[in-house]
């Protein structure tokens, strides 16, 4: 069954939400989804770009009250 794990990168300037996602992807199974929470608008662009480049699936981005929710799926 597909799991969705929250990666809470809010308030993280260093290492930052993308780096937190890279770490989290190592800890989940292929097919699992990760929802990154970020207060950094730049991550809303950076994360989809990296996810596509490395071969995972980018699913969605939504913004709620200053927090971006970026959902990806581990593909390999």
């Amino acid at each position, binding site marked *: 069954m597909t799991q969705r794990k929250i990666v809470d990168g809010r308030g993280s300037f*260093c*290492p*930052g939400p*993308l*780096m937190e996602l890279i770490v989290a992807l*190592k800890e989940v199974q292929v097919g699992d989804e990760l929802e990154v929470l970020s207060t950094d608008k*730049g991550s809303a662009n950076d994360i989809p*770009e*990296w996810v596509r480049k*490395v071969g995972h699936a980018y699913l969605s981005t939504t913004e709620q009250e200053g927090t971006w929710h970026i959902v990806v799926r581990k593909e390999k």
Partner: protein
Amino acid sequence: MRILIVGGGTAGTILANNLARRLAHELKEGKVHITLLSASDKHMYQPGLLYLAVGRMTPDELYRDQASLLEPGIHFHVDPVEHFKLDEKQVTTKSGRMVGYDILVIATGSRMYPEGIPGLAEHAETFYTEASALKMFKRLQSFEGGKVVIAVGVPHKCPMAPLEITFMLHDYFKDRGLLDKVSIHYTYPINRVHSLENVAKWAVPEMERLGITYETFFNMKEVDGDKKVVRSEEGSEVPYDLLITIPAHRGMEVLEKNGLGQNGWLPTHRTRLNLEGYDHVYVIGDTTNIPISKAGSTAHFEADTLGENIAAIVRMGAPVREYDGKVFCFIEAGKDRATYAMFNYQTPPDPKSPTRAVHWFKVAYNKLYWVSARGLL
């Protein structure tokens, strides 16, 4: 009140001393007991390993006897914990000692984990232990030219280490008169040369000025020692003559063996610093899963906050402060210039141009650390 601190690194040592001072009266009257359990009778100044790798510090400068750093009244034992029984409020140590507590602080730190990348441990140099830093120093001394590649794993201890070792290597080879025979290629996991945007903006022109090339979106996949190439998850392949790595890190194995956290990182409340699900268990230093830098300053500021809070719990029954995510990192920009980055959960850093003055302050701090460890600075 029995306070048990597990881990004698920066976080555990500063906290123990902080508490011993704040609660001196209660300690004297026997109302409070502070116990510190560590795996070593030595305390290492870990940032010194960077200097050791390029021959700017010697091993003896990195260590002090742990007992010599501690305030009187702290019960210190070199006896690492093997079993955490959180629901019973006790731990069992390697020697078989059972230690109960009312408040537990876990500060066991992190360790490098190059084994996660095939070929990395065998073919790359690094500097996160005394042995590896000495090995890297000797390798550098025998290196007469070629392509030096810096490759970075995540998460890693000391967010400035990738840039610092790159700039220090440049000056190392410059001093040896080898710059015309050496090229330095820097790689980084995300789409800029450092996770902090303002640090990346500062570092790029520095690299271009020094002739250091760089490649972003580079997450190590494997190292082929026969072909001397490092391959990335993103599909890139970079040849090297000398591979230097800032390897990924993990928390300590004992935590995983006890079913705590994942890869040794413990789920920690970002402002209260308690272990999720436990009001009287706290986590500080590298061991937390808080999304901030794994750095000595993080450990220091967390220990300051927690020290104030535990003292308040002893005296008033409740904590008084929240950790604001404060981090302060020096950034060595070569052998004789440095800058710094200071930030918290709300405010990003704004590093200035490197100066000799900040470098000399960092050199001074390499000695002043021992005052910090004693909880005085």
